[in-house]
């Protein structure tokens, strides 16, 4: 049968950025996790109204060293991730392997620092609502770091030895998007958990 058609066979079988479905999917994930973090932050500020001082009397404010080091480390980690991202968009395997490998090292290092950050909170979650709030905020961000570590290592393994398909470069690309989000939200979490208790 002859009929008018729209022939799409010349369109590319792959794309990057907001052109793809997976980019929008990851954006959705970011929106969800961003909303959850924002609400937790608001809840912490709400609880703060119940305290004469924040942290409450008897609890020293949190130590800054590890957390501040993590600000630096996370900021630096953007660079290898960005390189991996760009290399992925050019579909070049070796640069992706190297850059993603470095990003993995950064990711694991931030997790190690996170252990010291928890210790530096100077209280337990069951001491008082202050303790509950700061542990939850820090814990939520830590959960993102863990999830990302698993994802980064698996992606790296895939790029190194899996049956690599072009779509996996898109995965590396959107994985970077998620990492940027984790780095970005660390700033407000850091301010709220580590700096704000020194201001009151």
């Amino acid at each position, binding site marked *: *049968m*002859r*009929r*008018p*058609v*729209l*022939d*799409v*066979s*010349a*369109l*590319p*079988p*792959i*794309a990057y950025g*907001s*052109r*793809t*479905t997976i980019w*929008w*999917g990851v954006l*959705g*994930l970011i*929106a*969800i*996790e961003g*909303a*959850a973090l924002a*609400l*937790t932050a608001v*809840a912490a500020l*709400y*609880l703060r109204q*119940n*305290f004469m001082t924040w942290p*409450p009397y008897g609890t020293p404010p949190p130590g800054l060293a590890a957390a501040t080091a993590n600000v630096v480390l996370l900021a630096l980690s953007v660079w290898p991730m960005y390189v991996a991202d760009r290399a992925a968009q050019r579909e070049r395997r070796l640069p992706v392997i190297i850059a993603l490998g470095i990003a993995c090292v950064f990711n694991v290092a931030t997790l190690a620092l996170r252990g010291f950050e928890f210790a530096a909170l100077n209280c337990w*979650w*069951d*001491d*008082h*609502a*202050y*303790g*509950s*709030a700061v*542990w*939850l905020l820090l814990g939520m961000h830590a959960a993102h770091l*863990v999830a990302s570590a*698993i994802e980064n290592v*698996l992606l790296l393994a*895939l790029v190194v030895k*899996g*049956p*690599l*398909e072009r*779509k*996996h470069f898109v995965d590396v690309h959107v994985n970077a998007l998620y990492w940027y989000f984790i780095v970005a939200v660390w700033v407000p979490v850091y301010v709220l958990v580590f700096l704000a208790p020194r201001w009151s």
Partner: protein
Amino acid sequence: MSAELAVRDVDDAATRAALEVTWAPPRGVLGLLGTVNHKVVAIRYIVSAFVFFALAGVLALVMRAQLAYPEARLVGPDLYNQIFTVHGSTMMFLFAVPVMEAMGLYLVPLMVGTRNVAFPRLNAFGFWIYLIGGALLWGAFLLNAGPDAGWFAYVPLAGPDQAPGKRIDVWAQMITFTELAALVGAVELVVTTLKLRAPGMSLNRVPLFVWAMLVTAFMVIFAMPAIMVASTMLAMDRLVDTHFFNVAEGGDALLWQHLFWFFGHPEVYIIFIPATGFVSTIVQTFARRPIVGYPAMVLSLIATGFLGFGLWVHHMFATGLPKLGESFFTAASMLIAIPTGVQIFCWLATLRSGRVLVRAPLLYVLAFVATFVLGGLSGVMVASAPLDLQLHDTFFVVAHLHYVLIGGSVFPLLGALHYWLPKMSGRMPSEGLGRLTVAILFVGFQLTFFPMHQLGLAGMPRRVYTYLPETGWGPLNALSSVGAALLGVAVLLFVANVAWTLRRGARAEDDPWGADTLEWSTTSPPPAYNFVHIPVVESRHPLWTHPSPRVVTGLRIDVREVLVTDAIDAVPDHRHMLDGPTLYPFLTAMAAGIGIITAIFTPWGITVGVVLTLPPLIGWFWPAGEAIAGTTREKA
């Protein structure tokens, strides 16, 4: 490289034969647990949601039997607490939200003209997680461990001191499951709508139902995190002694209410907005003319979506908030009546100016309009802070919420199922039985819930398991219980109609109602791949304006390829391969389920969950390494 307009020889038979192979439904275990066909998943979702609706309905009948006369001895106070909590929680979390999303998951890909949802495996995962959550709640209830602090589980009543045992923990983890599923569904709906629309379906041509689901999905994305945060805090307070809600240690009980209602009020719109999508669709089809005021309708939907987030405090007027705040939220609550009013006027104007064909789905809609106007009125009443103080926690509120939820959502939903049943099943439902169902439903509903307004004004509190004869509440309660029995009959009639349709119904044509949207351009029921050719859309009402449209060719048909278009104008952008059936989403859901349920008893459940889900997750994403060299295309 771009898409090319042309006139070609198109071999439909060959294309169809190839698509049948590529999209063939899996058999055996894989078919049972591994399918990723959005229609199969959605129908399972809808059927499960209706099973939960029936179960919660049975609980409602038990409550009505218990309240039918003073000092009844059918159920005691403890069981009654569990019953209304499980009834409310099931209706909200296991029926209303999931069933609306499931309707979207069935219809949206068909209405926007694509072959599946954007992430088929994730979609299957969402369904399994939902099912486990439902099984958890009902399993616990049957073991006498059903939650008993009301569907909003207020602290301190739900806190560790006043609610020892595991009942509330079951509730909190049921929330984890159902919100996860709701969020998965929302992401599917957003991305499918924005990126998989048929070429030419620019945003101003998107069917109103799809618009409604899009707004709903955005609301889910921003509302559900609130209750996930809240229920996580509650579970932690109960399990690891945090103090989020423990006033003695600087925690705050009102924090729970804020977080809950920041989700809970939008929740009402998450249930109601899809229903307006059903209504718009049905009104347009049976008025046989384009809806009046399409832009106004779309703007109303969006406005409702935003305003829905500004109202949560009206559930807390009785908590003694600052006066100015109360006035603000009173005003905002009244404001939201405006976009809803606009929609109602557009529907009425469409009907007034159309050539109306009266069929059962339209009767459901009329029952909805009548009921909803009444429910909205009582809503505007309780939205005002001074009046709410009087009526708070009385049966007036029970009446109001059922007017909105049943009148506003269940009526349109049943109408929608009647309307789309021919597409889903390939057979026509009985018109006569449908009309009878509407009539009994409407009468039963008014009998059940109208008297509750009066009971509330007369001072009958909600959530009491019985009352004394001297209160004088007996006769109206008896009336209400008779109505509930009628409602039960109506639901049975509806189910009977579906059963009859599946066995005896006349074969349905592609477009039995003469509707305009794309799902009616394919066979009833649609094939696994939905369309032989992806359609090209040239107007807002594709089936009304050009019966033999241009179609898309050049997609690969030896793999599950779909066309990705741009978010605003639906200009073809690239081709994209979707994943096929696999057991991994099911296994991942099982593993996560074990972890979450373990977390009811010990915080190590989280660790267990992470460790258990890792292997199936790897299996899910690790490429199977199949040959992907072939490039069979549609003959063009």
